[in-house]
Each structure stands twice: as C-alpha cells, then as structure tokens.
C-alpha cells in the first residue's frame, strides 16, 4: 500500500508576522520556514502505518518554487522513502484550487491508496486544498482526522467536530486531511539527515504535468495587522484584594459576568 503525504512550506508558527511592502502579504525575509504542523502529523501517521506494515511506501509531495525543496528534504530525513516536487514558483502564492490542481496532476501519476494532507496549511488557514484534491481525484475524504485505522482495504477515521467526535468509515482509496494526530512528529536523526541526501527527490515542471493555468480565482486585495489592544490595567494588592477588585471590574465595568 502506498501513501502520498502532501506537505506545505510555511512560516514558523512562532514567527512574528510583518506586512510586506506591497501591503498584500507577509514579509518573510528572515522568517524561519517549516513544514506546516498538521502536515507533520500526517507524515508521522503515514510513517507509523509503514512501520506497522500496513503501508509499504511513503512518498512526500509538495508544489512551489525552489524553497519548497527544504521541506521535502526534511520529510525525507524523518523517514519518507522518496519525494516529488511539482516545480512552479507561481504555485507558492497561488490560490487553493490552483495548488490542488498541481498536486492532483502529480498524484494521478502516483495512484496511491491513501493521500494524506494536513487539515489546513497554517498561515493562509484556508483548509481548502485537502477536500479540493479529493474532489479533483474523485476520492472520498475525511477532514480533520485525529486517528485512522486501515484494515483490509477499509478505512475507519475519527474526527473532531463541534463538541463531539465523528467516526467515518469506508473503502480505500481515500484522502485524509489530518488534524493533530495521536503521535508527536518525530525529529530527524543525524543518520536520517545523511540518508535523506541519497533518497530520490524527483523535480517535475508543472507544465510537464499539464498544469498551465495557475491564474487565481481568489485574489488578495490587502493584508493588515490586527488593531492594537488598548493598554490594560494591572491590579495590585494581595491576592485576596486583587481577586475581589477583578471580580468587581468584570461585573461592573466590563459587564461580562
């Protein structure tokens, strides 16, 4: 069984966001880039399925310009068998449907039993690519899974919905868009980093895969920082006096209790 894990190259979640000169996107100069955390959970679960012998091969896939290669090498270093890079700089800033189309073109050639993505790429926070990929590939999907079981070509997945857990079941092939899974993503070992240098990383031009139209249907008009919060008030005195004053302010001034 083959699993392809789609990964996105995103700014570190600890990064402070500044607005770029064009006023439309983030200024990423000097910002550390990482594999989107939900994609890391997806990769971890894929590696565990391979280790339990439910899967035989784990391939990682990303779309974008040269910079995306770093995330693919990272994924190889933690244990993926090989990587595919759909190379097209315009895809790094494309809208979700354009990115999903590029990934779908590469996935058709791979014909995996399972496609894993994160539930959303942190930063853009759209959460569209996973479900869109499933639709383009005519696969069923589970959005926001926290656990899956694969048994004899059948999939059972658990996902968090508002205030409850929904269990979905059906047949493979399928796509799973991962929320935080049950297992912490592993770190790359030195041995893994060395081994990754020899693993295949197949760079394909998007145009060779038949992906030509990356014109966005969704356009960004502007981006701004949230309004600054007014300065707060520090309550002094001992714990008892401060707690009493806080309760009073919440009741009388803020009127939230």
């Amino acid at each position, binding site marked *: 069984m083959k699993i392809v894990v789609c990964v996105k190259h995103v*700014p570190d*979640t*600890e990064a402070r966001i500044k*607005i770029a000169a064009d006023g439309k996107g*983030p200024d990423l100069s000097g910002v550390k880039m990482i594999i989107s*955390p939900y994609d890391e959970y997806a990769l971890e679960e894929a590696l565990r399925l391979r280790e339990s012998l439910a899967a035989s091969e784990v391939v990682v896939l990303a779309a974008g310009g040269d910079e995306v290669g770093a995330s693919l090498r990272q994924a190889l270093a933690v244990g993926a068998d090989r990587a595919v890079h759909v190379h097209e700089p315009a895809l790094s800033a494309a*809208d*979700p*449907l354009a990115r999903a189309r590029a990934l779908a073109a590469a996935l058709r050639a791979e014909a995996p039993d399972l496609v894993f993505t994160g539930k959303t790429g*942190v*930063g853009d*926070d759209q*959460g*569209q690519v996973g*479900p*869109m990929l*499933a639709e383009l590939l005519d696969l*069923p999907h589970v*959005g*926001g899974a926290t656990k899956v079981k694969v048994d004899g070509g059948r*999939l059972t*997945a658990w996902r*968090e*919905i*508002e*205030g409850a*857990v*929904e*269990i*979905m*079941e*059906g047949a493979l092939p399928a796509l799973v868009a991962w*929320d*935080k899974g049950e297992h*912490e993503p592993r770190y790359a070992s030195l041995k893994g980093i060395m081994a990754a240098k020899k693993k295949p990383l197949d760079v394909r031009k998007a145009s060779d895969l038949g992906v030509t139209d990356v014109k966005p249907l*969704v*356009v*960004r*008009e*502007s*981006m*701004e920082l*949230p309004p600054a*919060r*007014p300065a*707060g*008030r*520090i*309550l002094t005195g001992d*714990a*008892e006096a401060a*707690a009493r004053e*806080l*309760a009073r*302010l*919440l*009741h009388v001034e*803020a009127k*939230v*209790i």
Partner: protein
Amino acid sequence: MATVLVLLERRGGELKRPSLQAVSVARRLAGDGGRVDALALGDGAAGAAAAAGEAGADRVLAAADPGFDAYAPETYAAALADAVRESGCEIVLVAGTAMGRDVAARAAARLTTGLLSDLVEVERPAAGGLRGRRPVYSGKAFAWEAVPEARPAMATLRPNAFAVVPVPGKAAEVVPFSPSAVTARVAATRIETPPRQELDVAEASVIVSGGRGLKAPEHFSLVRDLAQALGGAVGASRAVVDAGWIPHAHQVGQTGKVVSPSLYVACGISGAIQHLAGMSSSKVIVAINKDADAPIFKVATYGIVGDVFEVLPKLTAEIAKIKAES
C-alpha cells in the same frame, strides 16, 4: 440584487445555528428583490423551512432522500453543486463548521470556482461576486480577499461572527429537490459525544485557560472550578497539551482553536506568539501570572501579577458571590 444559496447544516434533525447566521448574511447580500435559497439534506429536510424562513430564506430546496442522513463530504458537495444549478445563484454561503469547511471546498473544486474561507466580514461589490475579511496566521493578521470573476462566488463564514437577523413571520417556500445520485464511499457511521458534556472552546462565550504555571495536571481543577463558576469552557496552552495534561480539543492557539469569546481568562500562561494568535481578539482578556514581564500582559485588559494557586480560589469565590447576588 442577487440570488444567494446557503447550505443548511442539520445534525440529528436539528438545524445548526451557524447555518442560520449564514442565511441572515445571505438575506443582506441578496438585497431587495433578491432571493435566498437554502439547501436542506436528509430525512425531514422540509422541516428546516420554518427556522430558515425566519432567518431570511425565501425557498428551501429540500432533498429528503434518507441517503443524506449519513454525512459524506462527496455526496453533500455534489448535492450543493447540483443546487447551485437549480438555484442559478451568484453567491454560495456555508457556515465554517467542521462540515461546512469540508463541503464548501469540495463543491468549489467541483464547480471550478473561488472560495473565501472563514470570513468575519463579507460584502457584495457593485460589480458582483464577493469580497470579505478573514484572519490569517491565526489572527496575527487580517486579509481582504475577493472572488471577482468566477461564479458562483463562494465563502465559508466563521461561526458566531455574524448574527441571526430574525424576519418575524416570514416563511420559506419548500421546493422538493432531487440531486443526481452519488454513492458515498466513506460516510459518517456514528457520533461519540464525550461522557461529561463539556462546553467546546470554539463555541463558548467565556473561556478559562491554564498553562505551565499550574505546575501539574491535577492543578487544572483550579481552572475548571473558575470555568464552572463563570459558566465557561476550559482551554489550555500548547505546552500543557503537548505535556499530556489535557486533550488537544482544549488547545487555544495557532495549532489549536482560534477563539474570540467575550471573556478570556489566562491562568499561568506566559503568552507565546502562537497562543496570542489564537485568543487576542477576545473582547476582555484577564491574565494571572507570576511573571510581570510575561507577554500575556501586553494583550490583557486586566492583569494580576501573582500566584495562580493563591489568586484562582479567591477569584472563583468572588465570582460565585457576584453570580449568587445577581
């Protein structure tokens, strides 16, 4: 003037409130003389007409096939795409819930159109289509985006960012609707509700969160006690979720839930960037932390520099006193 289609989310026959919020937004965007259609799926679909009508819908496309009783993204998305053709709409709105986010994205791919995610403001430009404002980087920034040309222009709306605007006495016309049959290959088979009915942080108007400053998982009871006194939900920082003190469902922040309750109380939380991103749009923020230099105080409306073990029990008692008197 426009025709706007809304997907109604029903669970166990009950219409979810974020869908009604979407219907009211649709009413506003449709304008005078415009039409609001709402798609209801599954057994008893026509029953949605009363509530949808009062929120502003003109018609309910009722696909009562019990095949829709089990949620499946593929069949729901196909039905929504069919309803777009039936309705002839220019705009599609979907509540940005776990279900809505799934279905809207699949339907947008099926229709080859543009989808705006998780909007907190939305308008219809004079030239048609949609534009809206949404948080990016989990609220570290906001973006205005638009679907200028592709039709229908689609959007998911952040739950509770918009109000239900009642239209008293308005009834929606029920139009029986039969989407082309699509077989679900993966579908929901059951829902497990946690034994103790805990309020979800994503839906709560008051949240009390705990972090490393609580020192040990058993001390979360101090946070729970305050949450209970306030009638709120229990949240947590990433550090304590990663440490296994409390399940991920409680995590507030960039890799957890992004929340904007009317009151957020951060207990023993220093305020890492990724946590602040998830809660700094809350209306009132209270920070209780030993370290006066903790970044959480920069976003706090009220702060107490002190020991959570001393402050929390006293605060819980004071809140209980006020609640008892009012």
